[in-house]
């Protein structure tokens, strides 16, 4: 009996729950006040947006909506760590990252409002649209990374996937391809502890989700996903490695879904109020606020002003969303393929005629 291989999965956290630095030798980023304030503001903005989107759904002005409550640090870290040229392949609650990349809130609303034009968004034109079939987007990121490798472009592809998504073959295939092809790929597991009603512990017997990267032979780390500093440090490292040809990595962001799964869900059916209350103690925004305030980098007045401004901005976006003119019926046909075949031309004409009555 000998040892064929051994592995360690590291856990990264810099800020404790009360916003104090856990270590003396914090990374430079922990002192980058400007960047931190920027990130903090976007986290707040995301939360304001999220609350208003849920309210819109409740009043019948939006379809089913997937909240990102509690996951703001993870997503804003992703958005701020990526370069514009990089490719982002989100799943469906990645608004923080997407806002940073230029996607407009009104576009998010359009998508959940049942209008494809939300996917024709203002973010980088090469970014992927929202992906509903769980984990499939991981392979799109891997394929994008393969394209960059082939074309020798110094670009990185990053996909997010949920804790539930790590059970799917596509996730595994993507990290395995990332390792096998040494791809400029980063997969971030947004471990918010639930896949609808299924708790993290039921998805897998793996102690950490990060250790799944061992199966693919790629660098893997577990991070406090509610700690913006730790998330950025981990992502910066992973993205840099990827960009410099050192291959793929896996980042598990440990966070918590404070909301229902979507507006169609009622989380009280499957988890206790105590658990949710405990999770609120660890949420990312108050933690970062405390840290910034500890550094005198953020005041209560700034907080008040910024939240007010967020409300105004989000309301503007909502107004723009609500004022968007509906797509014509023909839109259903016109983007099926580059040139409509005869069959579709005929169907299009019939549909238009039928709509006229």
């Amino acid at each position, binding site marked *: 009996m000998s040892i064929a291989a051994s592995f360690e999965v590291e856990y990264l956290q810099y800020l404790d729950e009360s916003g104090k630095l856990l270590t003396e030798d914090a990374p430079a980023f922990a002192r980058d006040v400007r960047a931190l304030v920027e990130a903090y503001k976007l986290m707040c903005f995301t939360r304001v947006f999220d609350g208003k989107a849920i309210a819109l759904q409740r009043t019948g002005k939006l*379809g089913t909506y997937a909240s990102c409550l509690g996951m703001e640090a993870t997503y804003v870290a992703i958005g701020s760590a990526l370069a514009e040229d990089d490719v982002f392949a989100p799943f469906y609650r990645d608004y923080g990252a997407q806002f940073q990349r230029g996607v407009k809130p009104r576009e998010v609303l359009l998508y959940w*409002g*049942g209008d494809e034009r939300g996917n024709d968004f203002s973010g980088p034109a090469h970014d992927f649209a929202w992906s509903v079939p769980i984990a499939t987007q991981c392979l799109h990121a891997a394929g994008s990374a393969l394209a960059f490798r082939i074309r020798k472009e110094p670009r990185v592809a990053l996909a997010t996937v949920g804790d539930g998504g790590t059970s*799917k073959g596509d996730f595994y295939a993507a990290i395995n391809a990332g390792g096998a092809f040494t791809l400029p790929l980063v997969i971030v597991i947004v471990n918010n502890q639930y896949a609808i009603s299924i708790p993290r512990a*039921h998805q897998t017997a793996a102690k950490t989700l990060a250790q799944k990267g061992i199966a693919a032979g790629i660098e893997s780390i577990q991070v406090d996903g509610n700690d913006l500093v730790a998330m950025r440090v981990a992502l910066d490292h992973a993205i840099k490695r990827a960009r410099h040809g050192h291959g793929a990595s896996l980042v598990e962001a440990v966070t918590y879904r404070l909301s229902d799964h979507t507006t169609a869900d009622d989380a009280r059916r499957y988890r206790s109020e105590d658990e949710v209350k405990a999770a609120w103690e660890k949420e990312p925004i108050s933690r970062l606020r405390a840290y910034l305030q500890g550094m005198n980098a953020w005041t209560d007045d700034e907080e008040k002003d910024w939240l007010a401004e967020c409300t105004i901005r989000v309301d503007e976006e909502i107004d723009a969303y609500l004022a968007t003119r509906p797509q014509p019926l023909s839109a259903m*046909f016109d983007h*099926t393929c580059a040139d409509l075949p005869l069959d579709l031309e005929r*169907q299009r004409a019939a*549909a238009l005629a039928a709509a006229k*009555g």
Partner: protein
Amino acid sequence: MAQINLIEGITMALAHEMARDPSVVVLGEDVGVNGGVFRATVGLQQKFGAERVIDTPLDEAMIAGLAVGLAVQGMKPVAEAQFEGFMYPMIDQIASHAARMRTRTRGRLTCPAVFRAPWGGGIHAPEHHSEAIEALFTNIAGLRVVIASSPGRAYGLLLAAIRDPDPVIFFEPKRIYRQYKEEVADDGEALPLDVCFVLRDGSDVTLVTWGAQVKETLEAADMLAAEGIGAEVIDVATLKPLDFDTIHESVKKTHRCVIVHEAPYTGGFGGEIAARLVEHALYDLHAPVERVAGYDVPMPLYRLEMNYLPSVARIVAAAKRSLQAS
């Protein structure tokens, strides 16, 4: 006798069969503690325990493969895909194994599994939650493909599907899950899996449909009746094996046929029915067969979905075209 809607028919059938037959197990995402995202399995885990109502990790290929393993070893798994749009990863296990286990082993091993999924559009759901993909299964030999369209048929057909000694694909039109209630006795009476149901008699035109379109088709028949046109309405129910004889009998009488389905037109199962007509009923037909179907475009997001789905108006217009022909 209870007044129940379609999804309650599903729940009632599952509960009935689980109580009757200890080998029946239910598995899928969120089917246990949560009772299913549509509440189809609500209460089952409390009643039958977590060993028989199994919340699985998130992987449909896994769910299907586990179901094959369970079924071959003597269980009767009822595997749920949360939406039909997430059944694609199940197809490999279904086509490569479930459908051919019996013939592959010349009867030594069998696969009495049910693969059920909510089906179709019209509920303002997000992307991928509204597909109608029955035609991806009807060309796979070794499968039965069934779709319910009323509370009573949901109950009786699902009982039959679970009892069937071979694999069954079972679709549930989610748009009409809660459309109306009807009296359904929990009497364990299964319905046959090889007949079409004639829902309404008529002698002028035959309207053939399945799933959620039964609603619009019956409404179209009402409208036609108001104009003195007698439309016979057939719910195919079991697409495969197809009970063509029932359809043929009707067309012998009406000489006209309109087929209605929400899956895309080209390659949809409506083509199969129309084909059988031109093979076996050519001389009975007094007018071209009409298909009222989804268009050959991906199911649009919900703002446009009602423009995509066959409407009462389109069905009525097709029936009238059919009556005007020749």
